[in-house]
C-alpha cells in the first residue's frame, strides 16, 4: 500500500515539475483495523463486496471492495460508456459491481472539494494497459450522476478519428469535416443520460441550420438535440451547439458540468481518415474534435474535466507508451497543461485477493485449484496483478 503511494508520488515528480498543480496525497491509513471491523464473522461476500452503494460515501475503508450499481442506473448513466468486456461480465453475472480503488477515491475527494467559482480543473487518469482507467472513470461518472451533475461523457474519442464511412464537408465552416453518424449516435446517448436537464437549459443565441430551418433563442437544449438526431446532416453542428451552450451556461451555476473523455489522446493524435484525394485529414479538421478541444480547455467554471489516456484504441502509438507526454505528444500536453495526473496501477495484493474472491463467489472460477493458495499465486504471477490480464485469464475460452 505504502509502496503504491510512494510510486504515485515519484511518478508525479517524474513529470515536468513546473507545469501542474501538485496536490498533496493523503497518507494511507492502516487498513488492518478497518478490515477487522468489516470482515469478522460475516459471510465471505463481505470480503469482496461492500453494501455501501453510494459513491459519495466511499472511503478508504472500502478500498478493494466491490460495490453494486443498480442495473437501472446503468442503462441511464452508461448507455455507451462501458468497456465491452465489462459489459459482458455484467451480463453474465447479472449485476454490475465495481471495485473501489485508490485513484478513484482520490478523484472523488477532489471532486467533493471543488470550488465551482474557479476554472474547471483537469484530471488525467493514466496508466499502463489494462489497469482500470476506464472503469475508474465510470466510478466517477456514477458519483457525479448521483450528485446530479450534467454528464458530458465521450466514451471513446478514438472512435471519432478512425473508421468513419461518411465525411461531409461542414456547412458551418468549409475547412472542416462533419461526421453525421458518430455525432447522431452520441447525441442519442447524451439525451438518455441527461433527460431532465435538456428542458431546463435554454440556448442563448439563434442558430441557423440552413435556409429554411433555424432555432430561436430561448428554446430548450432538448430541441437542439432532437434536431441533431432527426436531421443527421446537422448532427455535428448540433453537437457543437450543445458543447458551446453548456460551456457558457455552466458558469451560471444552474448545474454542475462533468466533462468525461475517454481516450483524450485521440484529440491530438493522427487520424486514419482521408479525403477523396487520399490526403490525410488532421485531427483539427474534424468538427467534432475541434469542438471537443475547446471543451477541455479550462476557460470555464462550474464543473470539472476528467480524462483518461488510452493506448488501446490509439493510432500510431507504440504499445508500451502510457505516460502523458508519450501519448499526448507535445501539442496535446501543452494544450492540457496544467492538469492533475493520477496514476492507475495494477492491483495490490488486497485488491487482487478481493477480485479473486468476487469471481469465486459468483462461481466463475471452476478450476479446483482456484480456491487454493497456489492457484491464486499462479494467477497473480501470470497476470502480474494487472486487472485486464486477470480478467482475460479468468474469462471463458
Amino acid at each position: 500500500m505504502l509502496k503504491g503511494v510512494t510510486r504515485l508520488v515519484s511518478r508525479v515528480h517524474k513529470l515536468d515539475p513546473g507545469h501542474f498543480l501538485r496536490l498533496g496525497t493523503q497518507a494511507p491509513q492502516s487498513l488492518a483495523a478497518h478490515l477487522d471491523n468489516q470482515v469478522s464473522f460475516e459471510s465471505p461476500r463481505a470480503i469482496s463486496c461492500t453494501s455501501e452503494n453510494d459513491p459519495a460515501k466511499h472511503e478508504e475503508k472500502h478500498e478493494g471492495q466491490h460495490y453494486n450499481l443498480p442495473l437501472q442506473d446503468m442503462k441511464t448513466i452508461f448507455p455507451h460508456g462501458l468497456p465491452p468486456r465489462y459489459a459482458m461480465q455484467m451480463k453474465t453475472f447479472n449485476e454490475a459491481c465495481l471495485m473501489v480503488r485508490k485513484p478513484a477515491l482520490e478523484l472523488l475527494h477532489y471532486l467533493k472539494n471543488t470550488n465551482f467559482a474557479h476554472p474547471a480543473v483537469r484530471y488525467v487518469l493514466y496508466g499502463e494497459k489494462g489497469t482500470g482507467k476506464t472503469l475508474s472513470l465510470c466510478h466517477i461518472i456514477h458519483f457525479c450522476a448521483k450528485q446530479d451533475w450534467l454528464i458530458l461523457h465521450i466514451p471513446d474519442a478514438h472512435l471519432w478519428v478512425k473508421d468513419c464511412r461518411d465525411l461531409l464537408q461542414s456547412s458551418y465552416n468549409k475547412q472542416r469535416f462533419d461526421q453525421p453518424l458518430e455525432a447522431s449516435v452520441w447525441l442519442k446517448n447524451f439525451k438518455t443520460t441527461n433527460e431532465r436537464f435538456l428542458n431546463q437549459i435554454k440556448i442563448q443565441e439563434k442558430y441557423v441550420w440552413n435556409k429554411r430551418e433555424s432555432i430561436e433563442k430561448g428554446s430548450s437544449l432538448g430541441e437542439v438535440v432532437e434536431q441533431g438526431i432527426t436531421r443527421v446532416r446537422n448532427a455535428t453542428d448540433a453537437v457543437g451547439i450543445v458543447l458551446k451552450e453548456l460551456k457558457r451556461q455552466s458558469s451560471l451555476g444552474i448545474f454542475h458540468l462533468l466533462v468525461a473523455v475517454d481516450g483524450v489522446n485521440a484529440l491530438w493524435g493522427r487520424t486514419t481518415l482521408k479525403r477523396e484525394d487520399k490526403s490525410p485529414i488532421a485531427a483539427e479538421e474534424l468538427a467534432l474534435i475541434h469542438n471537443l478541444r475547446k471543451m477541455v480547455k479550462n476557460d470555464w467554471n462550474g464543473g470539472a474535466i476528467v480524462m483518461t489516456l488510452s493506448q488501446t484504441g490509439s493510432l500510431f502509438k507504440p504499445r508500451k507508451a502510457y505516460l502523458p507526454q508519450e501519448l499526448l505528444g507535445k501539442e496535446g500536453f501543452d494544450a492540457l497543461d496544467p492538469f492533475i495526473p493520477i496514476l492507475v496501477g495494477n492491483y495490490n495484493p488486497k485488491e487482487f485477493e478481493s477480485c479473486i474472491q468476487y469471481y469465486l463467489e459468483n462461481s466463475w472460477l471452476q478450476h479446483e485449484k482456484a480456491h487454493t493458495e497456489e492457484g491464486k499465486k499462479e494467477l497473480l504471477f501470470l497476470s502480474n496483478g494487472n486487472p485486464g490480464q486477470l480478467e482475460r485469464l479468468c474469462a471463458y475460452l
Partner: protein
Amino acid sequence: MAASCVSCGAVVSQRLLLRPRVSLAPRQVLWRAAELQSVPGPQILRLKHVTVVTTKKNVKALRRETYTVDFIKKQIEEFNIGKRHLANMMGEDPETFTQEDIDRAIAYLFPSGLFEKRARPVMKHPEQIFPKQKATQWGEDGRPFHYLFYTGKQSYYSLMHDTYGKILDIEKHKNQLQAKGLFSEKDKTTDLIGSRWLIKEELEEMLVEKLSDQDYAQFVRLMERLLQGGAAGEFVQSFRRSVTVQSEKQPIEPVQHDAQGMAFSTSEGRRKSAKAEAVVYEHGNGRIKINGIDYLLYFPVLQDREQLMFPFHFLDRLGKHDVTCTVSGGGRSAQAGAIRLAMARALCSFVTEEEVEWMRQVNSFAHIWNDVSRSSTAMHSNLPHKSSFRLDCSRLIRASANGRSRARREPAGSLPGRSAEYCQERRGRVHLRVANTHQ
C-alpha cells in the same frame, strides 16, 4: 516368365525396327544390330539394346556383394598394419594406439569441411564398416546347413527354440527340487534394475535377420517368462543392455552478494538463437524485469509468461524471488524459453540437492535443440532397382509413367506408348493408359 519375356524381347525387336527403344534395366547389354538384315524393306540401323536375362539360380549372390570370410580377414590384417603405420607416422607408440587416436590422426591428416559427419574420411575396424552378412547357407549340393533354414528366419527361430528349451529345463529342475523339498524362493529380480531389453534394431543386428514387430514382442515375452522361471544367468544378460545413468550433474552456481547485502545468483540460458542471462535474488516479491521492462509488458502473450512461471511453480516459490534478466536474439518463444532455462539454473543455488535432482528429471536444464536437420532422404539414391533383371513390361511401364526411368535413361527414348499397347495385346490384362511419354 523369363523365357517368354526373352522371346517377347526378340519379337519386339523385329517388329519395332523403325522405332526407338528404351534400355531396360541394363545390367548386361548386347548389340543386336546385325541380326535384322533378314527383314525386307528399308532398314535404318538404329541403336537397339536388348537385355539378356541370366537364367542362373543364385542370382541373390550376384546382386549383393558378399564379403567372404577370407576377404574380411584380409581387411582386418590390412587395418591392423595400417594402424601401425599410422601410429608410426604420428610418432606414437603402435602398441597403445587406440581407435580415438586413429580418429584424431585421420582428422588431422585428412581435414574435411563436409557438414555431414558420416561423409568424412574414416578409418575403422572392418567389423564396423562392412555390414554383417550371413555366410552361404547351403552347401554345394544346395542343401541348407541349418535345420530351420526353410522358416526364413533361422537364427530367430533357433533362438526362440533354445530359450524355450531352457525354460523347460528350469521348470524340470524346479519340479525336482520341489519334490525333494529343497526349493527356495530366491530374489531374482535384482539384476534387472539398470538394464533394459535389446530394442528391435539391436536384435536384428545381432541375428543378422529382419524381424517383424510381432516377432520382437514374442521374443520379449519369452525372455520375461524365462526370467520368471529361474535365475537370469549369462544367457539372459546377453540380451540386456544397461541403461546409462545420467551422471551429468547440474553445476550449481555460487551465491553472490551485491552491494546492499542481498543474496543473488546469475546464470545463462539459451534456446534456439536466443541468449538470456538471469539474476535471481533470494528474497523478493515475484517481480521480473526483462531488459528493464516488466515481464507483463515484455511478454503480452500468456504462453510466454507460463514458461517463465514454470521453474518457480515447480519449486513452489512463486512470488518469493525477484529476477532481473537480459535477453537478446531469437523470437518471442525462444526468448521465453531461454529465460526460463537461465532462471532454473540460477534457482539451483537457493534450493536443496534433492530439488535440483527433481528439476533435472523433469528436464528443466536440458537444451531443447530444435532439430533442424534436413531430411536424410533429400539426396535420393540413384541405385538401380533391386528387383530381378527380367524384362517386366508392367514394371517398366509403371516406371516410365512415373518418370523414374528418365533418370536412368541412357541412349534411346522413353518407352513408347505403343509398346505399352503391345504388352497389353500380349498380356491381355494390363490396362494401362500410358500417354506417349516422349518429351
